[in-house]
């Protein structure tokens, strides 16, 4: 079958792309790498660059999968955790965790992703219910609700930072989105959330397909729609929270990656989810590699870079698809 062959080709291409880009990213940086490695070089490679590369891949994958879930939930290919305010909610949660100094180490948990999850869930639920006030989700209402909720949560974050100015620079830098603090600890935080949420989403692929046909049609085909949508909101919030808590708010990966994949292999979630995860990882790894080499040794915040590319892309899609999406 045509679609399946395309999917396999794409997956092979993406895996190759990830491996090659990963190798290139390993070799790039202010410290040149020469074989045989001395201990300093191997520390740079395996304690700094490798976890950073893995983290960029994982955060990109998490954002892309969250994007796919939101796009299914809102039945709209323009939905994105950044645009919907979920990232702002997660950022607020994470900021509260950092500023309050709450420590859950005794429970074996890291406070930041948990608080980020709370914030993400709150923001998403708000946008979801605001967007549904008109029975079926309408693009304009969804976008406006996302803007309003995002602005509100960002303002709360700013307010918190205003009272704790000594922490401001550090948190602002983190919130702009970046991997400069990426170590193995961050990889270990994200991996279980990403792995669990991805597998769970994948197991719901068929239901997600039904949802794209509209709530009523999905209901008639035997899907308990509202219950299912709540699960999607929670799963997507977990993914965004994990991503934001280690790397701040990084925009547009969640929209751009699934969009490109959909153009290539269609909207079937059974292949869309894994391919988008890889594509999102690859895109963010590319962006991060650019961000740290363009002005080397100065690093650009990768979130700034993705928004520079993603913003115009979003406007282009909005313009192109306007009539079809209203």
């Amino acid at each position, binding site marked *: 079958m*045509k679609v399946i062959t395309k999917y396999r080709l794409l997956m092979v291409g993406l895996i190759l792309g990830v491996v090659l880009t990963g190798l290139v990213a390993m070799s790039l940086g202010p410290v040149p790498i020469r074989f045989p490695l001395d201990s300093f070089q191997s520390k740079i490679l395996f304690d700094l660059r490798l976890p950073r590369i893995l983290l960029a891949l994982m955060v990109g994958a998490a954002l892309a999968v969250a994007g796919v879930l939101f796009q299914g939930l809102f039945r709209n290919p323009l939905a994105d955790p950044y645009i919907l305010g979920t990232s702002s909610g997660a950022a607020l949660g994470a900021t509260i965790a950092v500023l309050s100094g709450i420590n859950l180490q005794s429970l074996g948990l890291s406070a930041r992703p948990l608080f980020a999850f709370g914030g993400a869930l709150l923001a998403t639920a708000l946008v979801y219910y605001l967007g549904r006030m008109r029975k079926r989700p309408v693009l304009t209402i969804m976008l406006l609700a996302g803007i309003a909720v995002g602005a509100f949560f960002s303002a709360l974050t700013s307010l918190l930072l205003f009272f704790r100015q000594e922490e401001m620079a550090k948190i602002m830098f983190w919130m702009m989105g970046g991997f400069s603090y990426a170590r193995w600890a961050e990889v270990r935080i994200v991996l279980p959330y990403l792995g669990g949420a991805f597998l769970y989403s994948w197991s719901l692929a068929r239901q997600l397909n039904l949802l794209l046909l509209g709530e009523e049609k999905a209901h008639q085909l*035997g899907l308990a729609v509202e219950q299912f949508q709540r699960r999607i909101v929670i799963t997507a919030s977990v993914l965004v929270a994990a991503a934001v808590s280690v790397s701040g708010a990084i925009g547009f990966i969640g929209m751009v990656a699934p969009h490109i994949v*959909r153009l290539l292999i*269609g909207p*079937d979630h059974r292949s869309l989810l894994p391919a988008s995860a890889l594509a999102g990882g690859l895109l963010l790894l590319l962006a991060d590699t650019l961000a740290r080499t363009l002005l080397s040794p100065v690093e650009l915040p990768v979130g700034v870079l993705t928004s520079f590319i993603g913003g115009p892309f979003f406007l282009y899609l909005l313009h192109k698809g306007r009539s079809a999406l209203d």
Partner: protein
Amino acid sequence: METAEPILTAEGLSFCFGKNQILTDLNLAVPTGVFTGIIGPNGSGKTTLLKCLNKTLAPTRGRITFMGQDLTRIKLRALARLMGVVPQQWETPFAFTVQEVVMMGRFPYLGRWAGERQEDRMVVREAMRATNTWELAERLITELSGGERQRVLIAQALAQTPRLLLLDEPTSHLDVNQTLEICTLLQTLIRTKGLTVLGVFHDLNLAARYCQHLIMIKDGRIYAQGAPEEVLSSPNVTAVFGVETVVGAEPFTGRPYLYFSLNRRQEGAPGGH
């Protein structure tokens, strides 16, 4: 005519949307194995009734029994194996192929991780052959015309291998040829598969030609139900639709055929909201 138990009954069915009473105390029975039509003016509650019957809307009062079971007790997944629904208007911005859309009709039969089985593919192929959508299989649903999309939706509902098919104005986007084809197809399925069909009809003559049983609704209440010859009487149609009517015979089948004329003395058509 109807010997078996009715497949679907409603007793004392009422539905309110906010303060608006849309359906009032409906009692109806849909006979098994025949083509039943729901007719009535715009805004009389036909679509709402259909949505109550397929569990999209929960009735405010009353009780619906489907295949001997209380509808509220039937799980959605189990219901989707027994009842297929073809909505009046439907589209999606997501570019699934026609075959993918029809295969989604197998959803209530598939486990979470299970792939499609040979049986599912056979059912889908048969449903697509029956609705003349097989040649559209690889086309994108977003690129189809309204009539083609309607046939794909019917194929999807047939892929559920239901006992009862509910259709909301199934032919509103079709030309006359496609309309007759779809109605004839439904008749064939009733004969060969023992399917029961319940459809909302806008076109009274189409309903008269294909339905063996009619339910006539006015202002959310049942005005008449029974054989088309009785329901589509001149006084009934005048009372419900506000038009003068002469009942003749359709030359190909001998079924009732209605000729309409506006009644000048009676201002405007009653029954609208």
